[in-house]
């Protein structure tokens, strides 16, 4: 693989399960050393995409290269170059920390003289010193998950696929986990990580938003924030929220209106209502407005606006 070739390249990657299209003509190019966050609602196709890239699922259409190898025809070569953490915790609970590491070291074919050093590294990385002989099922979530990462990197893979690695893990452990991911990226490891925590998206170099199997936006967090909204974002404190959202969504100049907690986020484009008009406009609809202020858009705003569908489906899980 040449230095500037993408580590992960997907072209029109598609997966159909009977009549259901889980991933729909997805194009993705990830450079070496990049951390790319995969964000989307449950069932958007994140896991399916990652599984195809790991050679675990055969693409129905399109193609993908990982580390320069085709995921359909050269799956074995792909597997030698990747580390994968599946969504479900998948180490052996009835083995100890050390035994799990040794097992994965064995099947990843880590050389005998290297295995001790690699295991030591994985144990210290996961902060599991002194717990080497504990059965894995007795460990708390954060440790389990760092150990799973430790197992996935034993053979120093240049590419890591992490499928919702932080789900169900307490915030402190999540932050630690992300520190580790950044350390790997600094060493040149390419990482594709899926998550449904919006705050985690900010840790990524680039974010790929995916919904109903389609890639709907990709870019750095600031790019997405700056360009994707198509207008300026205002936070409106008003009541009742539902009626206000309904009234605004048909109003001229309103790009988007969505409920955020106990407030409304409204994106205003050019040539229609501006921020000063909002109290008056809403007042005509019998809605009481107590505050309108300009706010910097969060990724959540971007995401909510991009993901189309009914309001229930818009909720970030």
């Amino acid at each position: 693989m040449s230095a500037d070739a993408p580590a992960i390249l997907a072209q029109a990657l598609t997966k159909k399960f009977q009549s259901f299209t889980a991933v729909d003509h997805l194009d993705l190019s990830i450079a070496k050393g990049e951390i790319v966050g995969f964000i989307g609602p449950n069932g958007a196709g994140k896991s399916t995409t990652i599984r195809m890239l790991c050679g675990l699922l055969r693409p129905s259409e399109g193609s993908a290269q990982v580390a320069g190898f085709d995921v359909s025809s050269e799956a074995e070569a792909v597997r030698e170059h990747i580390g994968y953490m599946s969504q479900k915790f998948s180490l052996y609970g009835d083995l100890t920390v050390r035994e799990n590491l040794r097992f994965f070291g064995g099947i990843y074919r880590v050389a005998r003289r290297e295995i001790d050093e690699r295991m030591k590294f994985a144990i210290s990385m996961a902060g599991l010193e002194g717990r080497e002989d504990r059965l894995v099922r007795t460990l708390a979530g954060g440790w389990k998950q760092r150990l799973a990462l430790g197992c996935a990197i034993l053979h120093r893979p240049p590419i890591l696929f992490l499928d919702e690695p932080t789900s169900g893990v307490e915030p402190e452990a999540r932050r630690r986990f992300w520190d580790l991911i950044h350390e790997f990226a600094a060493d040149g490891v390419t990482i594709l990580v899926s998550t449904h925590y919006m705050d985690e998206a900010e840790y990524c170099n680039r974010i790929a938003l995916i919904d109903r199997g389609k890639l709907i936006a990709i870019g750095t967090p600031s790019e997405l924030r700056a360009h994707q909204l198509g207008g300026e974002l205002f936070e409106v404190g008003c009541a009742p929220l539902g009626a206000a959202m309904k009234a605004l969504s048909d109003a001229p100049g309103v790009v988007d209106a969505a409920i955020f907690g106990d407030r409304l986020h409204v994106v205003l484009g050019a040539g229609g209502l501006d921020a000063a008009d909002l109290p008056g406009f809403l007042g005509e609809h019998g809605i009481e407005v107590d505050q309108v202020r300009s706010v910097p858009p969060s990724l959540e705003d971007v995401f909510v606006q991009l993901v189309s569908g009914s309001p229930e489906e818009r909720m970030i899980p």
Partner: protein
Amino acid sequence: MAYKEMLQIRRDPRSLAIALLMPLMQMAMLGYGVSLDIRHVPLCVYDQENSQQSRAIVDQFISSGWFSISQTLDRQSDIRHAMDRGECVAALVIPADFSRQLATTGSANMQAVFDATDVNTTNIALGYAQGVVAQANAQIAADWNASHGVHPSPVGQIDLEPGTWFNETLDSRNFIIPGVVAVILALVGAQLTSLTISREWERGTMEQLISTPVSALEVMFGKLLPYFAIGLIDAGFCLISAVAWFGIPFRGSIVTLFVTTTLFNVVVLGIGYLISVRIRSQLGASQIALLVTMLPTTLLSGYTFPIDQMPAPIQAISLIVYPRYFVTILRAIFLKGSGLSDLWMPLAGLSCYAVIILWLAARAFRKRLD
């Protein structure tokens, strides 16, 4: 891979205990339960004469060990009642002139009535009864000769019923127990391995495993080796108990036994593994394993029902029932002391099986989720 599997088996001592003890329990159950021999057949006696001679005959029935007296009756009609209530399987009726007949003519009749609802038991019990009577006759003949001083033409002294066969007590056990060993190993081995792969699918560890460069052969041998060891230990238990507990004569060589048992184990575990690879739930895999091993093994392996008595199409089907080869082999080693060269036919059958099964099993494992 094999080491990890071994660790996991050790971490689960309950399953290990089951794996090791189940064959012994089945051995006890099948060994005793399936035996075609019968002891202590409940017998009712309606002794109309109640003389010294008639009581002597009854005593001979009891001392044979095959019968035990459940009731002494006073009326012919009571026999019917006793049988209806299941209190006896056989009834002995001795006429009032039994000893007089015997003394004057040298022969006498007595009647044995059998509850023939269980034809098997009836046949065997009848055989036993005739055995007892034959023995008594020999005694009577000797007495008659002693008192009369002549050799009469062979008169049937006590006449029970026209002859049926007589089954030596140990015959069927020697025949059946080696077969039982084969059946148990086939069932237990397939059950054990049927879970290995499906367990990993269920726990989600398989997804991790197949994302690694591990090869299908590595997985297969890693999974099978520890169970192979358990299978051999089980076989050892069963074979030792056959000899030590059931007293089956062992006339062959240990080497022959070891080689053939090893080969059989490969087939059995391979089948379990193949099922495990195809069925991704533990429950399903274990049920399929039971289904594909239990019925053909118990019915068509020839361990109780002789294959050469079956209709030709069924005999043909039994050719694919792999335990039949091992049943044949074990019987030959135990009872005839056959060596490897005598057993080439069933050995060839098993070898073909082993090769085909392992080939299929290695191919069946796919490192894909779909």
